[in-house]
């Protein structure tokens, strides 16, 4: 089959690779009908995330039709239409039973690596680093879904792929980012990053009843899409974010702050960003913490910081004194996808939201490698790429 394969920094190719086969009784194989490129894939493309190997198949936002089912899997049958959550979940361990699917204790087959890096294992993820199992991803014609009897979202026929696909990741990720804020009707929610995750977080915050949503980015068309979803916007290449946010909130600061940027935060000429870049180049620091620093500094005391943006390793110069003295609450995590998807699927079917608004490009697999660069460099108005193998 054809698949998008990682070969090194900024080197993804459309290769011919062996078809996946059932390896365990709980597995299923799907024929991929649609998949997408995610901001998390960019961390692999730019090789900020450790633990990639040449030959790894990319992709963790996938949906398709079940074409083969393992003999112990009674939950699925051939012909079922499923969206595949990016977190692989066993459904039975202590964490899965609590709904903490992204920290499933069993699905990471490289548990030892993760324990060394993070202290404990986290869930296996599709098309991601070997720290999270190194499972082949879904930017391919076929995908093997391990633990498929628990790792799936059954979706009805008759609704388009485009409307359902993002149940795999960005919709529940934006949703959890907002839910982590426990939004109150009087709240101002500030959201850093207007990529696909930020866009979903904006819509979620509105649906959950935030009084005001303020979104921050520098890409004009992303800011325009944020405004379409009900956000006021700040262009961080034009304005000082902290003083703008203080101005807009009468000096009080936003009650809730969401980081949907992550470890590749961009900063225009600020001192801390130069520092981060030099340390990163010398391999003394892995992640750039510019957004976290701004959030801690500007958040209203007793407020909440929600961090769906991905970090991989070590951060430096975190104003933890401000964090502690202001009594801020910090909530983070890879998304517990299945915890939210039942409810979100209902909201899609009832017409509360149609997440396909974010799609700007649709291509075939062979154009995937070029689209990685277009998406990373924000060229051609690109916000979200869907691939139809």
């Amino acid at each position: 089959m054809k698949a998008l394969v990682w070969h090194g920094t900024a080197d993804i190719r459309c290769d011919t690779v062996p078809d996946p086969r059932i390896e365990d009784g709980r597995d299923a194989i799907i024929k991929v009908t649609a998949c997408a490129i995610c901001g998390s894939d960019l961390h692999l493309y730019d090789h900020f995330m450790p633990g990639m190997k040449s030959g790894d198949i990319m992709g963790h936002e996938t949906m398709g039709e079940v074409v083969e089912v393992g003999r112990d899997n009674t939950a699925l049958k051939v012909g079922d239409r499923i969206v595949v959550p990016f977190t692989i979940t066993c459904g039975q361990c202590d964490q899965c039973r609590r709904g903490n699917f992204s920290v499933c204790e069993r699905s990471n087959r490289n548990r030892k690596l993760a324990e060394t890096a993070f202290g404990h294992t986290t869930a296996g993820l599709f098309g991601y680093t070997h720290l999270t199992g190194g499972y082949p991803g879904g930017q391919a014609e076929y995908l093997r879904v391990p633990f498929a009897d628990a790792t799936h979202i059954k979706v009805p026929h008759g609704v388009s792929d485009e409307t359902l696909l993002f149940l795999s990741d960005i919709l529940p990720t934006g949703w959890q980012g907002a839910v982590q804020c426990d939004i109150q009707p009087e709240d101002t929610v500030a959201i850093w990053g207007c990529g696909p995750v930020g866009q979903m977080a904006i819509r979620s915050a509105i649906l959950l009843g935030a009084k005001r949503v303020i979104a921050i980015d520098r890409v004009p068309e992303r800011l325009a899409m944020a405004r379409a979803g009900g956000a006021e916007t700040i262009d961080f290449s034009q304005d000082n974010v902290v003083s703008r946010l203080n101005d807009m909130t009468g000096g009080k600061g936003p009650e809730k702050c969401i980081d949907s940027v992550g470890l590749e935060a961009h900063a225009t000429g600020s001192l801390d960003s130069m520092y981060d870049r030099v340390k990163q180049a010398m391999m003394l620091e892995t992640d750039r913490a510019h957004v976290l620093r701004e959030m801690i500094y500007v958040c209203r005391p007793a407020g909440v910081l929600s961090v769906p943006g991905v970090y991989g390793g070590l951060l430096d110069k975190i104003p933890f004194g401000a964090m502690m003295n202001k009594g801020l609450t910090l909530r983070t995590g890879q998304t517990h996808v299945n915890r939210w998807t039942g409810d979100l699927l209902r909201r899609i079917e009832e017409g509360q939201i149609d997440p396909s608004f974010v799609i700007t490009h649709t291509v075939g697999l062979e154009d995937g490698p070029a689209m990685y660069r277009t998406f990373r460099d924000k060229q051609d108005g690109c916000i979200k790429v869907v691939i139809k193998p």
Partner: protein
Amino acid sequence: MSQTHARTPVRGPTPRPAHSGHARLARGLGWFSIGLGLAELIAPRALCRAIGLPGRETLVQAYGAREVATGIAILASHDPTPWIWGRVGGDALDLATLATGYEHDNPRIGGLALATAAVVGVTLADVACVQGLTADKRLPPPGRFDYADRSGFPRPVDAMRGQAADFAVPADFRIPEPLRPWTSGAPASGRSGVPA
């Protein structure tokens, strides 16, 4: 389900090379730095003789160490731009040093001129590279894409605010009780953990 919002058409790919030429040039300059640096470290005497600047061996070796370090940084970093700027600075130092050799009695004036021409050439390449890398990072001109119609909602935003208020935030995702808004001595949620 029907599409509820008007939609600017979804586009296919625009053909673009997978690697930028400037990034490739940067890598070339990185390897050049390492090569030149090693020569300066290993054979400072021969180099100094060729350009008629005897007695500068230690300085040339220090420059060599600088070249090697910059070269490695260029090859290892995700964004070589600051290190190419470092090379431009280094080029200026090199030229200043070479300039001290232009005296009438320098028997190797030809070698010196050759070396100067080479450094000038490399400086131009460094400057072009830094400008190219910076231009690559610049965003495309705004305003070509109109996403003002892409709300994702079936009705105007204000009609959608709070539509998911039926959602019960799970207990483990709620703000810690002590941090909930506190009005007239009781949490706004109405639940009280207060001593009477």
